[in-house]
């Protein structure tokens, strides 16, 4: 089918460059998600792949062919828009059939394909309605159906779930993932929601200010972020970032933060840490690695005591997010609902340093990866 490569792709508007030298190889049938804050260039990149924006510089290759100058309709792609972009004056059936009609498909073929797609998306009963008579979720399905009937090699989805309520978003996430498996096509999906990215993607592309920050599988991005931006962007609540210094402790090292000592785990690469001894850096601790002392049988071997003051407790039901202060810094810890703490209390927690992150203070890049 279709692999896609972006080679030094650029988009400029006059003197303003919004996408800088994007290099990306997307494998056939991969589900890849571009994620980043608003204005990071993710939608522009997608629109360049779609042919809706001209490529200022660089090469776009789909299925082995250079397509920079190929019009959208000949790129074997389909797109789902953020606001669905359904034709308001056409019924659902016509909306889905339109692309096939323009491609001069026979009436029987159109009918079969529309019915097939409608059945998969469970919208058969809506085929005679117009878009304005549909709910947001139903419109979303029609938009997907319109993309599906043409059997494109590549599906482009531009924030398709951002107009849906939280519950519907959850179900549609699962459905789009299933659809990807079923359709056997390449999916390129743009979102600003890191949960969508984490749950659906084979690989995630994290972007910021028109630059790719990191491309990796969701778990690798979470466990081994290459810089502070990726570490902060992926994961909710956000990773706690604390200024710290590194000192030698016998055979190993420890990070110091406001009188607290966090021994670094033995598996950290000593060669990478050694140059930072005595220097200031930033340590990153995910909220789930800052908690009450666990029972001895499940405790990690890399625990270090950490005391802090409770500012606010947010019960989530299955857990409680404690907003804390320590050494003039704000932190978030995830503790069990059975852990009792009142606002203003000093609490004794532990840090599990197994997955602790170390960042260079100047470059904000990871020291470990």
């Amino acid at each position, binding site marked *: 089918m279709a692999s896609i490569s972006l080679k030094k792709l650029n988009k400029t508007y006059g003197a303003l460059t919004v996408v800088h030298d994007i290099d990306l190889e997307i494998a056939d049938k991969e589900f890849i998600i571009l994620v980043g804050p608003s204005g990071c260039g993710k939608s522009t990149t997608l629109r360049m792949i779609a042919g809706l924006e001209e490529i200022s510089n660089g090469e776009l290759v789909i299925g082995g062919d250079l397509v920079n100058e190929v019009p959208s309709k000949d790129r074997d792609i389909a797109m789902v828009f953020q606001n669905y972009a359904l034709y308001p004056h056409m019924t659902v059936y016509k909306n889905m059939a339109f692309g096939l009609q*323009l491609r001069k498909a026979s009436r029987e073929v159109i009918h079969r394909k529309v019915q097939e797609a409608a059945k998969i998306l469970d919208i058969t009963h809506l085929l005679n309605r117009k878009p304005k008579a549909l709910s947001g979720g139903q419109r979303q399905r029609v938009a997907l159906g319109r993309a599906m009937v043409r059997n494109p090699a590549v599906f482009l989805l531009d924030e398709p779930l951002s107009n849906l309520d939280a519950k519907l978003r959850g179900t549609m996430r699962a459905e789009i993932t299933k659809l990807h498996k079923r359709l056997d096509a390449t999916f390129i999906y743009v979102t600003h929601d890191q949960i969508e990215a984490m749950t659906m993607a084979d690989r995630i592309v994290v972007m910021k200010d028109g630059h790719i920050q990191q491309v990796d599988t969701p778990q690798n991005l979470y466990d081994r972020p290459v810089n502070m931006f990726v570490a902060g962007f992926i994961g909710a609540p956000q990773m706690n970032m604390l200024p710290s210094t590194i000192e030698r402790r016998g055979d190993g090292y420890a990070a110091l933060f406001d009188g607290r000592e966090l021994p670094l785990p033995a598996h950290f690469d000593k060669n990478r840490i050694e140059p930072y001894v005595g220097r200031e850096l930033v340590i990153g601790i995910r909220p789930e690695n800052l908690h009450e002392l666990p029972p001895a049988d499940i405790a990690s071997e890399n625990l270090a005591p950490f005391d802090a003051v409770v500012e606010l407790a947010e019960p989530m039901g299955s857990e409680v997010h404690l907003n804390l202060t320590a050494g003039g810094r704000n932190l978030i810890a995830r503790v069990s609902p059975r852990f009792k703490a009142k606002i203003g209390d000093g609490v004794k927690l532990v840090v599990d340093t197994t997955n602790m992150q170390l960042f260079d203070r100047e470059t904000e890049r990871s020291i470990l990866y």
Partner: protein
Amino acid sequence: MSMSNSTAAASGAPATARRPAKTMSRRRRQVQNALVAYSFIAPNFLGFAVFTLGPILFAFVLAFMHWDGSNAITFAGLDNFWRLFEDKAFIAAFWNTIIYTAVSVPATLACALGLAVLLNQKIFGRDFFRTAMFFPYVASLVAVAVVWNMIFNPEMGPVNMILYTLGLDPKDMPGWAADRHWAMVTVILFGIWKSMGYYMVIYLAGLQGINSELYEAADLDGANSWQKFLYVTVPQLGPTTFFVTVMLTIQSFKVFDQIYMITQGGPGTSTLVLVYHIYNEAFISWDLGYSSMIALVLFFLVLAVTVVQFRRQKED
């Protein structure tokens, strides 16, 4: 006033008496609000009643009367109505009005839409061309008609000069306003040119209201420019086209001033239209009863066409 009412009720009467006092004051407030609203409507309505509604009703009555404007009004029954069928000028005016409307409405609409689509693109000098196209609408009709008569003058007008240099035989040259076969064409061309700028502006507003994502979706669906125009632009402009059609139709049925300026209904009756005939009968022949009857016919004609248009719009 309402304040004093409720305090009286609160201090003097028991709790049960409070309720009617409250509703009283609410009703009084409603009446007050209504009076304020009517006082704002009143000046406009008075003008409408004296200068529009009254004369219309008077004309309805007058259609069944004889009156020369100075002597007494006498009852005519259906005399004026039967006279319509024998009046050759009326029959000519009736068909001329229909022809004028049937040609100028779709032609103006097409020109306005075409211009709007062109001037909605990012082309050089766009603002200048938009102004230039709108200008005939705001220009004085009298001045413009004089220029038009010069340009289309059969002997020395530039239009025929150009046709001559293009090789057209002087014998076959159109006589424009002076030629009974070309007079209607001349008047229709003038009407289109005069009002297309106005409707172009309305279409421009309509075009700018179309969601650009629809064109992008159509691009991906494989539509070419013409198909995008046909399947996205035209349907999306439906409500605008309806408005433009209704306004143009009414305007065409009422056409008078350009005919007065260019042809005076001639040559013969070739450009005589209903309103011009009404004018002739009323203020040249001073037969106000008969001219009111023609006006009544025009009224029902416009009403019928407009009702049909609204019905069709609802079906869509």
